[in-house]
């Protein structure tokens, strides 16, 4: 651990803010250096060097999410050009597993954060609402791995899903309001029954990370 960025007191602050342990931070830092080629920041192009990511149908969106200012908690909209280690950690912290000692309140806010991350991924135009078009875009990307699927069925599925979500909130829109799309509250409702905190996490091992060689 020899980088100027990870001086112990800073690290402690980082650990507190993001919730990682110092070993995890160290490890992620190593990874960060790998990705950034020992520079201080990462740009979008640096993610292209990860070989396995190529097969991921929504890689663009995910990489995008790393630079999304909303996720970085810097601004309500816009994309950052490059991110430093702190930002990297911030994004990674969305995927921390829940700890046994979390109380209800923290759990709830943790959950909300994860869902917000997801929401931002869908909502590409920063207006806080997922419209049908955005939904369709996501679906297109998701199903792009299956070349046999036809456009119309994709559209049908997107609409169906949209309506499913809409039905959860139909009661709230007045008779003359235009139903624009799914807001964050509706999104929360869709996810109410499902334990997202148990599903949306990555195990950050404290053991030596298996580096992808490239």
């Amino acid at each position, binding site marked *: 651990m020899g980088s100027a960025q990870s001086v112990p007191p800073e690290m402690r602050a980082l650990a507190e803010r993001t919730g990682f342990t110092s070993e995890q931070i160290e490890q992620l830092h190593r*990874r960060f250096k*790998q*990705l950034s080629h020992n520079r201080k920041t990462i740009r979008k192009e640096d993610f292209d060097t990860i070989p*396995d*990511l190529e097969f*991921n*149908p*929504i*890689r663009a969106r*995910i990489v995008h999410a*790393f630079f999304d200012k909303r996720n970085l908690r810097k601004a309500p909209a816009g994309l950052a050009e490059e991110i430093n280690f702190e930002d990297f950690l911030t994004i*990674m912290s969305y*995927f921390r*597993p829940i700890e046994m000692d979390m109380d209800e309140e923290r759990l709830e806010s943790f959950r909300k954060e994860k869902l917000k991350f*997801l929401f931002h*991924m869908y909502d590409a135009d920063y207006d806080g609402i997922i*419209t*049908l*078009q955005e939904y369709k875009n*996501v*679906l297109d990307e*998701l199903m792009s*791995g*299956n070349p*046999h*699927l*036809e456009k*119309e*069925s994709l559209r*049908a*599925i997107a*609409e*169906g*899903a*949209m*309506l*499913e979500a*809409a*039905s959860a909130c*139909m*009661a709230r829109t*007045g*008779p003359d*309001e*235009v*139903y624009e799309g799914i807001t964050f509250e509706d999104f929360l409702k*869709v*996810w109410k*029954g*499902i334990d997202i905190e*148990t*599903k*949306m*996490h*990555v*195990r*950050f091992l404290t053991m030596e*990370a*298996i580096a*992808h060689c490239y």
Partner: protein
Amino acid sequence: MREVSRMGFLLGLMDLPAALGERSSGSPTNNSHPQSFAIVSFRWNHVKDPYVITLWILVASLAKIVFHLSHKVTRVVPESALLIVLGVFLGGIVWAADHIASFTLTPEVFFFYLLPPIVLDAGYFMPNRLFFGNLGSILLYAVIGTIWNAATTGLSLYGVYRTGIMGHLDSGLLDFLLFGSLIAAVDPVAVLAVFEEVHVNEVLFIIVFGESLLNDAVTVVLYNVFESFVAIGPENVTGTECVKGIVSFFVVSLGGTLVGIFFAFLLSLVSRFTKHVRIIEPGFVFIISYLSYLTAEMLSLSAILAITFCGICCQKYVKANISEQSSTTVRYTMKMLASGAETIIFMFLGISAVNPEIWTWNTAFILLTLVFISVYRVIGVVLQTWILNHYRMVQLEIIDQVVMSYGGLRGAVAFALVALLDTKKVKEKNLFVSTTIIVVFFTVIFQGLTIKPLVQWLKVKKSEHREPKLNEKLHGRAFDHILSAIEDISGQIGHNYLRDKWSNFDRKFLSKLLMRRSAQKSRDQILNVFHELNLKDAISYVAEGERRGSLAFIRSPSTDNMVNVDFSTPRPSTVESSVSYLLREKAGPVCLDMQALEQRRKSIRDTEDTVAHHTLQQYLYKPRQEHKHLYSRHEIMHNEDEKQDKEIFHRTMRKRLESFKSTKLGINHPKKLNKIHKRERGQKRRNSNVIPNGKIPSENPVQDYTLKEKDSEFSEAEENNDYETLHLGKGVDFLANVTKQNFTDNPAGKNINCMQNFFTQI
């Protein structure tokens, strides 16, 4: 009670012919020259064996009927317990009548005929993702847990024996270890039987159940090792023997798994080519799986592992390849065989208990066995869970551990294994048998009885049976990708990474090899859910039609008016269901054909299409036959009335959609129109939107002609309307699914507007 007496009678009847048979078999020597032609003769010996077997099966099945007559009883007492009690009762009758122990559960019958269907059923319907997701935990419990149980129980019993409390037993350390190893294993049959009625959450279930399946390898190895050790004598047990034992564990387990996987591969490959032998398609599944079981048994590998993995690995491909009917046949046959086997097993467990010859009572031994297995199970579970929780994402809490310990039931496998022991080598076999019987009875009856209240009392998280939702599937898919991306980015190999790699590999190589080309295109989780939802809607639509007496309510004038009225003057309404009512009317014939058409779309020019189409009919009730004309192109030209129906239908549609158009929907219409007219003749069923409107483009040119004719017959607006109808209909089918089926006569104007406005975005 009448049933019971009837069964008693049957049993008596059985004995009677047996007695008769004895006598008549004696007589041929006297009557070698029959005096005259016997018009009818009683040939009991001729049919004795199959007759008796069938009678027993009948008795077992009748018993099940009797049990379910009383709902109160079955809610509290698990079926398996009832069956055991019945078995004891029957055995008692036979014993009292004849003083012979009639049928016992022989190990051969059990291992060859009764166990395989149950395990196959478990493997074939195993939720793979859940299973492999928790595989680490399952393996730990299965292997380490079983070894722990066996070792501690055996050693403790031996230790107590040495203190002399048990009196004199003609057994050494090895005998005790042998006994420990066969009593240690959690039994899949019992676990399934009990947990099925308890409905704990899926993670808990899969861990206990997976453990019960996978511990077979350990059980087989331990049993064989100790049995041969006992045979060769304790003096000859050297280090090499022990090492050989350890090696054999790996060989047995991995070998069994490989055998299973090999046969799964074979089965999937075969199922790819069975298109023309649809009738016997289901047979392949059973035959090849059974072969895998027997092959592993022949090679002295773990047969249960073989057939389990055969089922697990072939699921995906077989289900994709075989037709819907075959799939249904396989499912029901498997369930029937498994359920039947389970019933017979438990009943025979009861009957076999009534055999005074084998009864040896040794209070200390029996009591201590019970105590030890329970206590050591708890300790084992707690220790292992503690270790596991360091590595698991979803922690296993105290409550889960309690259920896991309590759900470690022993069952027929232990009994069969103990019955297999050679009395010459294991002198205390009878004691072991008696103890095993008591242990099995205790766990199945007592623990089975009390586990339900325990689960409720502890408020264990139950399994939630939710309707499959598209959103969940979609987001789930997105999740998978996101998580594996994060794993890639953070440079770690985790579950998601592995799963991703596997599904890529599967998609590129395996599916191409093992799945039919037509199935490859259509196999996708999201599509399946879409599929299912449509089908469900179709079915519920028809059911509603039946309820109302006919499906003609679509074109009843009253609803016509109502609809129009609503569109023009939106009324606030709280009844969401009426939207579904409305949309059902429109979407009715639309979505009925959805599935058929989805199928058609996927496999172009495949007779499979027509089969699938006909299959759809099988899922829906008779009324659909009448209704068929409305969407089937075949009849449209020939049947005047139906044509008329269709016209009225379309007129109604048009009226409604025109009012729809008056809102902001009109923008995109021209575009859609072009698309529609550019559509090729039956080439690609591109627009599932258009298709469900009753136009079934198919390979039949005549029909295509009518398609075009239809185009010209109705106005352009009609096309749009139909298109939009379908848009709406299809999409909101899910809505219909979501809302209750209260059909009122107040369509929700507000909700309609909501929908309308929503669709402005199209």
